[in-house]
């Protein structure tokens, strides 16, 4: 499966769900938020939310910032 993750195209993704994708990318799930095709997916749904070929995914976390 081919996905776009944080602006980068990743071929050959094995993961079928968000939780599996985070595992595949070695991203700790606790402190990130995930968006699939512009919609935020709740953490509670990461285990079950199915990804599809061509999905555009954003994984974000908090960084230093003021205003």
């Amino acid at each position, binding site marked *: 499966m081919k996905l776009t993750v944080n602006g980068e195209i990743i071929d050959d993704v094995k993961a079928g769900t968000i939780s599996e994708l985070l595992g595949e990318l070695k991203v700790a799930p606790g*402190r990130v938020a995930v968006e699939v095709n512009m919609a935020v997916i709740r953490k509670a749904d990461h285990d079950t939310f199915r990804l599809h070929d061509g999905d555009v995914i954003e994984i974000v976390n*908090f960084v230093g910032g003021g205003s």
Partner: protein
Amino acid sequence: MEDKFIIRGIEFRSRLWVGTGKYKDFDETRRAIEASGADVVTVAVRRTNITDRKSENLLDFIDPKKYKILPNTAGCYTVEDALRYSRLAREAGVSDLIKLEVIGDEKTLFPDNIGLLEATEILAKEGFIVLPYTTDDPVMAKRLVDAGAAAVMPLAAPIGSGLGIRNPYNLKIILEQATTPIIVDAGVGTASDVAIAMELGCDAVLLNTAIAGAKDPIMMAEAMKHGVMAGRLAYKAGRIGKKLYATASSPFEGML
């Protein structure tokens, strides 16, 4: 001395809130925040580095159990972007707090108040505790509260400018009519600036660059802590009125 204030049921012990940007490294960030005594820290929402997983996470240095994390929508120039970042922030974090910014101009980073009002209304309806960053406009402050803002964050001066409180009279009007906490956000340069904000009666001050950009950020963080405390105490103590002529403070009685 217990001197807390409350926004939508959340208690805030510190009247100094600090940003986490522009520091040399996470360790300096942590030390500066500790020295400032702040219990609220602002953070931004950005893409996770998926290629270098060794990169450190800010929250490894700033314990969310110890500090209230206030995500912002810095860098958002449209209502749509501000909503998107807010929703992601809520999912990445632990609370409904959002410091809402809809920026209208690249050079001044002044807010786009029309977009800000629209985004405030939408997010408030979605259950966010919205703290909008706005200009020091008393009418706008009222409109934001009508739209559902939980507190209002008027600027002192442009973000990162260090110019200090440029319009104390507008802030005074905002404070006089306020029905929510008022937190001065952005533009302060040094400890006397935060003292002035607190003397005016502001509930808190949020700053970042004034500490992070100082020659010694840790020392400046401490100075800011004292500035806020001095200003707050002076406000509560009630200053004397200003008079044009002198009033002797030593008695006439007993003079030779």
